[in-house]
């Protein structure tokens, strides 16, 4: 009972004090300082967390995902090169072999980068190590196949089949591993997006605190006008203006971040992943064309895979008119290449997408020529078209598709980087926000202290 009475007595004393003018002004200073402090902590914290998260998304998560896609693409390309080298038969064709070696070198570097990016993420690191080990086995099997071929031993074909199976096995193959790695990185990105969403919510809370602060400043300004018959207090006006400027800056930064993230993650990033996937699928389709010819009449499974893969790129026969329309932004078909044509917004992007579509058309024309030769039992001619680098030959058409998709990737990557750059809050904000809230408190004190002092006199 005694404690309750004491608390009640203290509250009564505060209430009495607030009812006095100097007491009201002192309490207001305290409230402004507290609100400004909370605003400063929230604002600075949100800016710092957003900057760090966006930097991590841009420099780690998304590069990790595109790395996984790149690893997939390089593997598919290596396997395609090896299949083509085998299909060529006889003295080892230097072109495919060089390409295979180049792919393997690039693959090693990508895996090293992926391992560096995965540091601290045990699951991702384990996946990278598993892929690394499987790639080493793949390379050994290819070398065994090559050694057997060079001695004219047909067992080389069995080694090559095993190598290719190691890449393509649905559950345990290397490609499945790269998909798993991308999925792990994807989950990491999702977590970062959750963090960004939470910082957005915290910024909303900061907005409420800012409104409270604004209300305090406006209210005390009105009080001064009433009680002291002053039209305005300049320091309080400056504090209010500074509050509005800082709030505006934070709001503007949040809007830029949201717009940048939306452009980067909602548009450029899916396009980038789609393009990497399209390039890998193109390589797989080329591999399957070669494996079908190697299978020599028993390649229905490879033919089915080729058809499925090309349908994932463009879901129906492509006419010149469809390509022209797509170049003009009117896309009336589906598939990954259609997605890119639809997503392209600049002339350069539309041009690159149209180039990829024309290359795809050339692939399908060359494929039809190969199938015609196969149906006429002309395997040597079919092989020549499949490996040829001349006009209307599949090797050239796939190379052009590869180059066109590479051009698309560069353009979309630049768009992605620009959007992520926009998404990053200004670097000065973490300094501006605390300085501004301290200034607001000082200005408030500067505006109210003289009035309190008047009562002391």
């Amino acid at each position, binding site marked *: 009972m005694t404690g309750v009475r004491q608390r009640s007595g203290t509250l009564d004393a505060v209430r009495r004090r607030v009812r006095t003018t100097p007491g009201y002004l002192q309490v207001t200073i305290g409230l402004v300082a507290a609100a400004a402090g909370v605003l400063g902590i929230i604002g600075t914290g949100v800016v710092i967390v957003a900057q760090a998260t966006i930097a991590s998304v841009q420099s780690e998560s998304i590069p990790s995902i595109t790395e996984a896609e790149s690893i997939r693409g390089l593997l598919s390309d290596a396997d395609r090169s090896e299949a083509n080298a085998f299909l060529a038969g*006889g003295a080892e064709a230097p072109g495919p072999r060089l390409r295979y070696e180049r792919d393997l070198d690039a693959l090693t570097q990508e895996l090293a980068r992926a391992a560096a990016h995965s540091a601290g993420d045990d699951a991702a690191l384990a996946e990278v190590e598993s892929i690394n080990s499987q790639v080493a086995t793949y390379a050994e099997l290819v070398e*065994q196949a090559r050694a057997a071929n060079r001695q004219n031993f*047909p*067992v080389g*074909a*069995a080694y090559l089949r095993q190598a290719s199976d*190691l890449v393509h096995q649905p559950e345990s193959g290397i490609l499945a591993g790269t998909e798993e790695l991308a999925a792990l990185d*994807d989950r990491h990105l999702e977590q970062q997006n959750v963090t960004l969403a939470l910082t957005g919510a915290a910024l909303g809370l900061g907005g409420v605190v800012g409104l409270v602060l604004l209300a305090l400043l406006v209210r005390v300004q009105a009080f001064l006008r009433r009680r002291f018959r002053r039209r305005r207090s300049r320091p309080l006006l400056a504090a209010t203006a500074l509050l509005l400027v800082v709030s505006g800056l934070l709001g503007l930064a949040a809007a830029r971040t949201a717009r940048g993230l939306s452009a980067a993650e909602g548009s450029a990033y899916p396009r980038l992943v789609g393009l990497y996937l399209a390039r890998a699928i193109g390589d797989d389709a080329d591999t399957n064309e070669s494996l079908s010819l190697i299978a020599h009449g028993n390649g229905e499974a490879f033919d089915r895979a080729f058809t499925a893969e090309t349908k994932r790129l463009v879901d129906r026969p492509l006419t010149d008119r469809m390509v022209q329309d797509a170049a003009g932004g009117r896309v009336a078909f589906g598939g990954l290449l259609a997605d890119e044509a639809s997503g392209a917004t600049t002339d350069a992007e539309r041009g690159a997408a149209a180039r990829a579509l024309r290359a795809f058309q050339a692939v399908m024309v060359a494929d039809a020529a190969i199938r015609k030769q196969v149906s006429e039992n002309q395997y040597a001619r079919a092989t020549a078209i499949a490996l040829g680098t001349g006009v209307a030959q599949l090797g050239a058409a796939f190379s052009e598709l590869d180059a066109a998709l590479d051009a698309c990737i560069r353009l979309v990557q630049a768009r992605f980087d620009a959007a992520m750059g926009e998404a990053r809050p200004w670097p000065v904000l973490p300094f501006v926000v605390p300085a501004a809230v301290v200034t607001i408190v000082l200005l408030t004190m500067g505006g109210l202290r003289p009035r309190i002092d008047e009562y002391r006199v």
Partner: protein
Amino acid sequence: VSAAARRGLLPWVAGRRQALAAMALVVASCGSGLPTAVLPSPPPPQAAPAPPSAPPCDPTASLRPQGALPQPGAMPAGTFMRQIQDRGRLVAAVSRDLLGFGYLDPATNQLRGFDVDIARLIGRAIFGDDQHIEFKLITVPQRFTAPATGGVDLTAYAATVTCTRWQMVAFSSVYYEAGQRVLVPKASAAISLDDLGGKTVCGPAASTSAENIARVPSHPILVTADDPSDCLVLLQEGRVDAISTDDTILAGFAAQDPYVKVVGPKFTNEPYGIAMSLEHPEFVRFVNSVLEQMRTNGTWTAEYNRWLSSLGPAPAPPAAKYRD
């Protein structure tokens, strides 16, 4: 947003992965390997099913040739040979990597071997040249399904004639007498399947060799592969202890690997025949005429010396037996 977009791009991958993961779990829980219809990678050891008992019959007896061979390019009307001639191509299924019998020569990318040449001879008997034959490279389990379903006109793939197989396809007269033996690393002390109890022994899937391995009292662990040469890969990788199949195939393996040896005597007879559809007995008789010609005009011996001399001096061609 990004994850959703990504899922949108790859919905089928996600679905398939889940399905496959579920399948893998089921398989793992059963504690057995996947079926080896196709060999994506060396298959895990698995117990072979008990072989079906064959009806009493003489599988080596085929259909007797009737009259002289028709002139090339003039196949009798209404016969399957005429259909082939009108189609412009004989479709023959052969193996892809059996050194000596049927393989794609890595140096030339051309098909070569004893079986390949027999198929060419049959094509030549129909068309008069080698330009009208289409080869399909098949796996061991496809040897009889391909002619039975009409996918090919004939299969020439080191195929043992058996009464059970006669229920699915018709066989030519026997054109080669092989026998099953064992191949082990040079360092191995094993000289027969009896010494390989509890050890892994590879044999081609859906073959008489695999059935024979499963029947051995010492109970070796049977590992199957769709292509015989996949067995050699498994042995070279140290994933099986031995291979047991026809001596013809093992001789080809030994020629490709100086660190293996063929041991023990033949413990089975594996008479080879060309498999064809049961629906075209006139074609079987026609092929038997070609084989008969081959035996008598020295072509058989020349072909043996060309492809199979590593097995020893050329024996006499197997005598044809007929059931009518």
